[in-house]
């Protein structure tokens, strides 16, 4: 039962890079929370993937960063921005 629930949740998983964008803009968690009208702990839970935001909250966050929603939230994991520059594959250690 627990496995079934986990598989279902994995299928519906929403990835985000709120943390990356927030740090890039030099904004604190409390600042972002105040701008979108939630508790700073909620932003923390969102960044850790413990909470999936409502459409209202997701759009409010994107408005703060002036980004389209697909730039911050995705069904697929976001690619690492440094991956293209690595000389070796970190998972296998092979040269590229």
């Amino acid at each position, binding site marked *: 039962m627990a496995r079934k629930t986990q598989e279902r949740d994995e299928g519906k998983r929403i990835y985000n890079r709120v943390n990356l964008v927030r740090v890039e803009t030099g904004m604190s968690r409390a600042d972002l929370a105040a701008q979108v009208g939630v*508790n700073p*702990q*909620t932003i923390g839970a969102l960044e850790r993937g413990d909470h999936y935001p409502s459409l209202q909250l997701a759009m409010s966050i994107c408005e703060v960063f002036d980004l389209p929603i697909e730039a911050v939230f995705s069904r697929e994991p976001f690619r690492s921005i440094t991956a293209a520059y690595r000389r070796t594959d970190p998972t296998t250690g092979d040269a590229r």
Partner: protein
Amino acid sequence: MTAPTTRGPADRAPLAVAVVGAGALSWLTLATLSALGPWSWAATLATLVFCACWLGSRFLIGDIAEKRRGAVDEYELEQRDRARNVGYTATLLLGAVVFVVLTVAVNLADGGDDALLRTAPGLVFSALVAGAALPSYLLTWQLRHQRDD
């Protein structure tokens, strides 16, 4: 590097464990005293300690469990609803236990077992207060997992 000056959720973890531990202990004392005999001063004292711990836990979690829907954000609402579900289930189960005990007490003899019937107010109170406070205690207990990031 300067140390952070504000207290985060991780700082509250030891206090949360202490408050929930003291609350659980005082409730067990209250329930045991209620089951053993009529209401006593010791039961009143246990109730006062339990309520003090309940207030402490409400303070630690920012009173999320008791707030109205509009006063909490979506993540807090999700946590609040989950904790309230557990509180509701606990109230039903404890109420069922009290129902069984009192039904047995009434049917033990022709006029019912007086000694057992006198425990009724304490048992009902213990069941109700546990269900009412459980959401706050549960959310306080979860503080031990929180970190400041």
